[in-house]
């Protein structure tokens, strides 16, 4: 195992990663969870994140980049403080998912994969988030919001703006 000095992660996360690489039959299997955890902490997958993860797993940077670019939930640019992910897959679409998405767009003044000027919100159109029973649904960071209507969305966004929505 590579010993990492000067890790860019918090001591807790670094410790978690040290453990993570030991629990899979092959070290590189830890790649996707590591990328997700790192993104949560850093906010996005930066060059420094790529390099440290590659080092931890004895991979080439290129291999990390290849995996990283495959998954749409991994991003290489900072998102807003609240990343709004609106589902437009079949159930949500039938129940007005696009209406919700369009509402978010006009409300926030940004499009897909864009971030507001104040860095508070970013918006993404995503595939199924597994909340079909309560469609239309959206996910803000790791919080789910279901049975949405434009009015409800306004309320939710206002909550986040006021700092109340964040858990």
């Amino acid at each position, binding site marked *: 195992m590579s010993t990492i000095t000067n890790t860019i992660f918090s001591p807790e996360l670094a410790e978690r990663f040290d453990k993570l690489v030991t629990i899979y039959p092959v070290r590189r299997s830890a790649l996707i969870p590591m990328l997700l955890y790192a993104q949560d902490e850093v906010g996005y997958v930066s060059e420094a994140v790529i390099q440290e993860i590659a080092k931890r797993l004895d991979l*080439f940077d*290129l291999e990390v980049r290849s995996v990283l670019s*495959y998954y*749409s939930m991994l991003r290489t640019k900072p998102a807003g403080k609240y990343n709004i992910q609106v589902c437009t897959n079949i159930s949500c679409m039938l129940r007005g998912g696009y209406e919700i998405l369009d509402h978010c767009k006009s409300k926030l003044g940004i499009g897909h994969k864009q971030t507001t000027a104040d860095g508070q919100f970013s918006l993404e159109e995503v595939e199924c988030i597994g909340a079909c029973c309560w469609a239309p649904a959206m996910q803000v960071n790791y919080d789910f919001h279901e049975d949405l209507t434009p009015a409800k969305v306004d309320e939710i966004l206002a909550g986040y703006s006021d700092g109340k929505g964040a858990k």
Partner: protein
Amino acid sequence: MADVTITVDGKKITAPAGTLLIEVCKGAGIEIPAFCYYPGLSLQAACRMCVVRQEKVPKLQTACTTQVAEGQVFFTDTPEVIQSRKAMLQMILANHPLDCPVCDAGGECELQDMSFKYGVADSFFAEPKNHREEQKWSPVVYFDRPRCILCYRCVRVCGEGMDDFALGVQNRNSSSIIAPNVPAHLSGVVENGVELAQLDCEQCGMCIDVCPVGALTSGTYRYKTRPWEMNHVATICTHCGDGCKTTLGVRSTSDGSEIVRGDNRDKSGINGDFLCNKGRYAFDFANSTERITQPLVRQANGEMKAVSWEEALSYVGKKLAQLRDSRGGKSIGVIGGNRLTNEEAYLLQKFARSVLQTNNIDHHRTADYVAFAQALAGTTDRTASLRDTLTAKAVLMVGGDPTNQNPATAWNLRTAVRLNGAKLYIANTAEIKLRRQAKAFLHVSEFGYGALVAYLTGDDSSASSAVADVNALSSFRDAIKAEENPLILIGSELRGAELKHLIDFGLAIPGAKFALLGDYANSRGAADMGLLPDMLPGYSRIGPIETQPFDSKTAMEFAAPTEQGLDMLEIFDAAAAGDLSALYVVGSNPIARYGVDPASLRNTFVVVQEMFLTETAALADVILPAANLYEKSGSVTNSYGDLQQVKKAADRAGVRTDFEMIVRIADKMGADVRKLVPFGTGVRADMGQTRGAQSGEADRHAVWLTANNLEPRLSPFDPYAILDEIQRLVPGYGLMRLQLLSGNDQHLSPSATAVTDNNGLCQISNRRDLILPSNDTLFTSGTLGRYSAMLSDLRQNEALRRLPQTDQTAAD
């Protein structure tokens, strides 16, 4: 594995169980198309072109991943299969540009062939094509994104084959692309305001070679010509000691014919699939405008003047004859090259010994082949072929750095480890990249090879001076001793006594085979052919005739001076002392290589046969413009002792082969050319008029030719006349003509006479610098490499390498 019988298209085929169906069919003459499948690489099953119908299996199966088992029934050309392949082609062509008329691959494109075969003239896809600009990833690798069909061959050959992992696949779905390892935002290379991704790798160009379409193209060849406009000549690469076969694409020009492309089209060579950057790109020195194309003679005022061939050769002949007669042959030195053919090397030493009457002849020795041959004297089947590096089950490598100096050896070793589970043991003073494939790596202390060899041969006290970590040493030695039939590869750092002791250690292991890795196309041949002051061809020691072994045919026939001559360093010492009247240099640059003071040659008549105005040529009184290895015919012997045929590919008006020049100079000196090059109807028939060994004998050469069913050669410029003599006289060169002329390699073992005293090695121990490993890298090739524009581009590119080198990262 046990054989099984399967049925393909109603035909019964027997093959070992577990063989891939696509290979079984290939062997039985049933063609199954595939883009992603490439023999020896991991399986991808990405292109779906090889689908076949298997009985009792609901879906079509990919032949490239199906392992055969008893009783299977397959159909490979049913309408269903053909329709499926056609649909796959339509998918591939959906965004593939139809720029075949300008594409480099046009005429050699697998996609083009398949489209032609399956007739996908129309497509369901009417979407506009998504065009992207081509990208320059390095001086030699260009990527044309829309042409890529995502077969992943390049990704696999780079990672698995080259251990470079410089290519990957990024993004998903229809936006998937092949990406190089330096992303655009980190490369620092900006063109027209756009950041460009770069490829940080060994630049071997294997990705270009395996690309089934024209997505990856070569910086030297792209948009220059069409495949069918070239003549394709398979010859031997002039660069390193591996002696790979390379196919040169040549095209006529107004002053000869130029080489446009070097590639590995002919996969029948000793190198199999492989060719490195030098073979692929570094032929361009031949087309250089800096080449000398007229004989130059230094005038009284010190200037060089272009003169006619007749004038230059007469002058050289007259002057050399005069100096030989006035100051003796011993005052003349001869230096040969490492890229001459065997025939030229042999002719040069024969000319030196019989016409110039001197044994002062040497060449730049890149490895100690003399000690190697002597250490193996009296053994049989102990020398390895390059082919053995692919099949050996266990390999010990002491010294050397094949990744940089012998890329084909490195490729073969990696392949042997990957596909055959070969065990690789490496002992080296540097952390060479091949240690990533090694089962055991021993980091030898600086200058520690001698101690290591001593330890291996049983001197436990030298352990601490061999390595820092003594504990690893004994298990390393035990592991090697336990191997059967290991291959022992020796780097050129080991010379003289060290080399001999290492071979002695290896000889105790049953079935061990050896190879000594030198550099340049014919370093081994130069030594074998006797470009040495103390050895005749075939390593028979020069000395009074009665001291020669009974069967030393060379010594018997050579009217050479019986006193050993001066070696490379002594020749220049003699020059400095004013004792050297003339120096004849054929394709070598000793002034730069050995750091000779140019002033030492001021009173010496210097004749140089060279392509370029090198440091040595700059001092010459006469420069004769020479052809290079790509412009002549003959044979070369690689580091391993594999003999291969060199075929004339290119041509340049104004130059002549070294062979022709040597013959012409001998003629101008008044020598009997028939004695030098046996041509025509025999050299002489001695009916007892003379005394000596040959008294009363008919012409031995003519007798030998008749006995071997060979015709007399018609021209004194025919290298095969000398090849006949080599085959007749040089121990170990009992070659097979048909094998040579078919363009195949054959392995020859040097056959030195055993050394009982230590005199044979003492010369080396006195002057270690006589053996001067070339230490070339991937992007240098001695003096010649300086004249390759592409190699110098690659050197500059290398200096900008952006990523940590692979050889400094630990293996997975």
